[in-house]
């Protein structure tokens, strides 16, 4: 069949001939594309690949991260006809998946990544798993061999839907062009609705090439096709009354804000609840940004490397109100000794999270924003007097804890540059408004603890899967998703070298990611565990890296190095002032640990603290 491309029928003329000489195949191809763009070729057969692009545009996708390969080429063959779809060519498919993830986390919209069959698809897997563990809305597209070759061990064939099945919210193998439109509509709906997550679509080459007149379903049709997917959005009214009653009774309540607050955009309701009932707010790693850290009721980051005062408050609380979080083991430590005095209210959109890790007293299933909006009118205001002694206690704990874990003058021991100081300065010099993208390990914990966050979606971190190499590619996606904000990738020398190839992507697509390389010449968190848990038995935690200034220069990226506290601010400001991507190489103390630390298997009351830390402020 033939269809008219673009919006409405455009009358065109075929008389245009590109100026020639003897045109190369490339020139002819370019001319063909130019003509398509300009509507000069009005008719072309509509194939599966066109439906993919139409579907992406219908879903509001403006950028996709991908890497071409044999069987996905039919899609790349039509990309030129859809100039509104920006394709960013990454250097490795893992980077594409993390970039889509960073785009999604920074915007709240669905991120899209793309790879070919076989190795292209398996390279996406780490990024898809990262998205699954952190409930990130993502659509991952792969090509597969023609349907007739499936199961024949064809070149670059692998059962990728078999691989992604247990690590996606849902997945599809599409073997006919006629099915593409419906599958994409379903996939985007599933990815973004309820508890978000990645959806993988595997398209055979013949599905991409097949002619089709299949139309895109509307939302009603999509819902009709998914009778088994009906997330519960509103909390049960009786449960809400119980929650209000629990809050009224509580003397030492604590709110635990999780990723759900950001996903549901419930930060206003969270703040209103905290203010109305005067409840301090603690947050999980992925809940950072749910509460403005300058708010008087913002208490801090909890868990394994959380602030001591926060964990103390949880351990002494008589009521815990957990909002859109899942009591991860990094949050609770040993559940047997977790929050021993507290009744627990747990609000989550995923019923399977309730009662999965800890016993809960008042479960509420629903979208946390809707739940809080319905709860707020039921909550009796609590006055200043009623909380005075509690707030005093909290403030005292906070002073004590902050004094014992902060290298305010910028140096750790022997005048070596302290990582927490670097992170704090990056936060401060960007007015706490930049998108901070952490990698995994010590850098991640410093980023979580010290940068200071004042807006939602300003902190990105691979929490559940803990994927090293996440930071730079995710920052690419974040920088494109939120071009109005500065984007800083905070990364250690280990993680940096895992996805370092994406430096070229930053240059080719001029993506203004600022990279803060916290180089301790170690796998820092591994070294920390080997010191503290494995009795100084160091193995494979020393790291030799390149000269990062030369490396940046080779890529054409401006770079600065800072080894002393007084060099930190200038380097950050210089990177901020650079037009495109920039790198700052911070050579930090190599044996600095992240404290406090809750050893595995221990509880929140068993925190290790930095031995003999002198407060030098």
């Amino acid at each position, binding site marked *: 069949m033939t269809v008219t491309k673009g919006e409405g029928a455009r009358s065109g003329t075929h008389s245009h001939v590109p100026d020639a000489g003897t045109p190369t195949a490339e020139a002819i191809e370019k001319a063909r594309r130019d003509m398509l763009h300009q509507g000069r070729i009005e008719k072309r057969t509509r194939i599966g690949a066109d439906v993919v692009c139409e579907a992406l545009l219908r879903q509001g996708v403006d950028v996709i991260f991908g890497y071409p390969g044999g069987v996905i080429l039919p899609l790349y063959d039509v990309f030129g006809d859809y100039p509104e779809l920006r394709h960013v060519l990454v250097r490795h498919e893992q980077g594409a998946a993390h970039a889509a993830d960073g785009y999604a986390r920074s915007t709240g919209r669905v991120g899209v990544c793309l790879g070919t069959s076989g190795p292209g698809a398996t390279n996406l897997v780490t990024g898809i798993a990262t998205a699954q563990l952190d409930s990130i809305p993502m659509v991952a597209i792969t090509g597969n061999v023609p349907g007739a070759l499936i199961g024949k061990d064809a070149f670059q064939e692998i059962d990728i*839907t*078999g691989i992604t*099945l*247990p690590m996606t*919210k*849902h997945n599809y*193998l599409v073997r006919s062009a006629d099915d593409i439109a419906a599958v994409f509509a379903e996939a985007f709906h*599933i990815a973004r609705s309820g508890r978000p997550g990645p959806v993988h679509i595997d398209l055979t080459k013949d599905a991409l090439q097949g002619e089709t007149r299949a139309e895109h379903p509307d939302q009603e049709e999509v819902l009709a096709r*998914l*009778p*088994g*997917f009906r997330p519960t959005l509103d909390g049960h009214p009786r449960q809400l009354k119980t929650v209000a009653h629990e809050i009224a009774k509580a003397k*030492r309540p604590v709110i635990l804000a999780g990723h759900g607050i950001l996903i549901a955009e419930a930060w206003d309701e969270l703040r209103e609840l905290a203010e109305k009932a005067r409840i301090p707010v603690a947050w999980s790693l992925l809940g950072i940004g749910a509460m403005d850290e300058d708010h008087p009721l913002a208490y801090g980051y909890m868990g394994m490397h959380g602030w001591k005062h926060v964990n*103390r408050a949880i*351990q*002494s*609380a*008589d009521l815990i109100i957990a909002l859109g979080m899942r009591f991860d083991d990094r949050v*609770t430590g040993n*559940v*047997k*000794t*977790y*929050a*021993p*005095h*507290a*009744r*627990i209210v747990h609000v989550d959109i*995923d*019923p*399977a999270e*309730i*009662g*999965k*890790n*800890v*016993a809960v007293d008042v479960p509420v299933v629903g979208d946390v924003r809707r739940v809080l909006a319905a709860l707020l009118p039921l909550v009796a205001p609590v006055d200043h007097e009623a909380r005075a002694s509690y707030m005093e*206690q909290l403030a005292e704990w906070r002073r004590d804890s902050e004094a014992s874990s902060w290298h305010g003058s910028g140096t750790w021991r022997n005048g070596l540059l302290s990582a927490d100081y670097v992170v704090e300065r990056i936060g401060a010099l960007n007015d706490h408004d930049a998108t901070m993208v952490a990698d995994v390990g010590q850098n991640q914990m410093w980023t979580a603890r010290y940068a200071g966050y004042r807006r939602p979606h300003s902190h990105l971190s691979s929490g559940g899967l803990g994927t090293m190499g996440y930071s730079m590619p995710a920052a690419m996606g974040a920088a494109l998703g939120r071009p109005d904000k500065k984007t800083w990738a905070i990364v250690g020398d280990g993680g940096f070298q895992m996805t370092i190839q994406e430096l070229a992507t930053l240059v080719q697509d001029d993506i203004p990611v600022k990279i803060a390389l916290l180089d301790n010449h170690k796998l820092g968190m591994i070294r920390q565990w080997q010191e503290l848990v494995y009795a100084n038995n160091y193995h494979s935690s020393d790291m030799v890296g390149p000269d990062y200034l030369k490396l940046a220069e080779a890529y054409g990226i401006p770079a600065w190095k800072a080894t002393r506290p007084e060099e930190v601010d200038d380097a950050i400001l210089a990177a901020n002032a650079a037009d495109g991507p920039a790198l700052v190489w911070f050579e930090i103390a190599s044996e600095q640990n992240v404290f406090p630390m809750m050893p595995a298997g221990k509880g929140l009351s068993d925190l290790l603290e930095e031995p003999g830390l002198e407060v030098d402020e």
Partner: protein
Amino acid sequence: MSGDTIAARPARALPGSGEHRRHVLVAVVQNRTGVLNRVASLMRARNFNIESLSVSHTDSDDVSRMTITIHGDEFHVEQAIKQLYRLIDVLKVQDVTDEPSVQHELALVKVRATDRNRGEIVSIVEMYRGRVVDLAPDAAIVEVTGTEAEVDALIALLRGFGIKELVRTGAVVMARGSASIEEATKR
């Protein structure tokens, strides 16, 4: 701290100490490619131990029905049900263990049979409302349906003659009364 004055509450750990027993779940699912794989994969990944799993069509073409027997306590099984609901293709899951229900399975047993004991085998099989569905000079295939216990009992008796081959379907189950899990999925 002030919390010390309050009587310590039980640990936050999940109870998980309930009675371990066999649970029978009925899952009504959309009949889409790979749905069996999804269910089996989920049960494996989440550490639920499937004892038997049977799948079949229902009266409507786009809906399939699974009977899943798993071992665990009630919290374990509740978590299994919640995880099953996370699958997009799963429409309805019900634990029918304690419901009045018909739980039957079918077994085919190829048993050694000679001219001398064939009559004895046939009479045992008839007592269990089974029947002989194939005869060979030195063997017979016995078919029996019934509860797991009934099938177990017949097999135990047949073992004395020498079982050459045995296959069981695993339980299929249906709640008694007029309520219908399939009708409950139609919105």
